[in-house]
């Protein structure tokens, strides 16, 4: 394959990955890793490229959410302590080669399955007005604008539990080159009982900084190759923008379900390839 054709194939694939990631809510990075692997790119380059794509898409969409005033900036900064510690640890685990690539590939498949299944879950509205002592101490309470223009107050619970779950999300992000958005949302939704709107936007906001902590380690180990990052970064962003436009216009429940089945198949294939030593 010539450089030009390879770049074009990668570019088109990345647009689709960005579109898929944005429609399913799984994020762009998660699909970039299998895409690059299928194109014969080494796993190390694949996770490096995916992490760059993750920073691009999360920063792009976080910009819009911050403007709407839904993102809880203090909660984001507080939990970033946990995610960045985790990300540095995860990226060092890969860079030090303590874990064989095959194991990382299998772990990737498992996380992919968890994320896809999680996207089917029905989300019950959370209304917690009480706030735990820890939550008050760290000023994690907040308000978010409702559709009728009023501001809804919310409190948080289980700050320590959420903090440790965030640390784990950071490790996964640094280890696999993904945003681990699903795990961040679980930490905030299920453990800390933050309203869904706040948890999704705040998790998105945190992904950029978490990925940056891992990216510096990837960068200095040569995982981030400019020739691969160029088409992927541009393609994923274009795909994600298109995806968010489609989401606004149509009811995408069926589309989302179909795509997550596709992602499940990819996940199973990654596990199979890791198991049989093809990665």
């Amino acid at each position, binding site marked *: *394959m*010539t*450089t*030009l*054709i*390879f*770049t074009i194939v990668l570019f088109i694939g990345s647009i689709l990955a960005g579109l898929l990631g944005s429609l399913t809510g799984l994020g762009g990075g998660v699909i970039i890793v299998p895409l690059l692997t299928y194109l*014969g*790119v*080494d796993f*190390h*380059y694949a996770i490096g490229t995916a992490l*760059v794509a993750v*920073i*691009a898409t999360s*920063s*792009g969409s*976080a*910009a*819009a959410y*911050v*403007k709407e005033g839904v993102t809880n*900036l*203090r909660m984001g*900064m*507080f939990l*970033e*302590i946990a995610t*960045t*510690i985790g*990300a*540095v640890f995860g*990226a*060092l685990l890969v*860079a030090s080669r303590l874990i064989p690539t095959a194991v990382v590939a299998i772990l990737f498949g498992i996380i992919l399955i968890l994320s896809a299944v999680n996207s089917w879950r029905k989300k019950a509205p959370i209304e917690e007005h009480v706030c735990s002592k820890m939550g008050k101490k760290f*000023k994690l309470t907040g308000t978010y604008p409702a559709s009728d223009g009023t501001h809804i107050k919310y409190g948080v619970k289980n700050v320590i539990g959420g903090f440790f779950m965030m640390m784990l999300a950071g490790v996964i992000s640094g280890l696999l080159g993904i945003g681990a958005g699903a795990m961040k949302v679980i930490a905030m939704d299920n453990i800390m009982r933050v309203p869904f709107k706040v948890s999704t936007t705040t998790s998105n906001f945190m992904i*950029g*900084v978490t*990925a*940056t*902590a*891992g*990216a*510096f*380690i990837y*960068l*200095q*180990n*040569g995982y*981030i*190759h*400019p*020739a*691969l*990052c*160029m*088409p992927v*970064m*541009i393609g994923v*962003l274009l795909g994600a923008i298109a995806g968010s436009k489609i989401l606004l216009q149509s009811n995408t429940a069926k589309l989302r379900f179909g795509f997550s089945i596709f992602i499940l198949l990819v996940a199973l294939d990654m596990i199979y390839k890791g198991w049989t030593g093809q990665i």
Partner: protein
Amino acid sequence: MIGKILRWGVYLALTVTSIGGLIYLINQHGQTSMQHSVFIENDENLWTLIKLTVHGVLKGDGLSIIELGILLLIATPLTRVIFSLWAFYKEKDRMYVTITILVLFIITISILTGFGG
């Protein structure tokens, strides 16, 4: 303001990367074939990487211009954290000034791992 930093950071990185990409593809003449199937570990600390990138950019090398775009992209969330530090300081929120410094400290550690030798 934080939204603006993120948006313009991404736009800037995207523009630089696109320019570098075009130069890279034109100079390649679409002839050489890509080899990414074998991973070559390349240990360079951040300082060396920046120096090499600036050198390449001055020579008009496409790959170096893309690398500059990637560095700008990675710097975007970092700039956001530094700006938050200033914002919390203005609000006289000591606790969050400390928390933000802690986050910056952890990111600094991730940079320092490249200087280990």
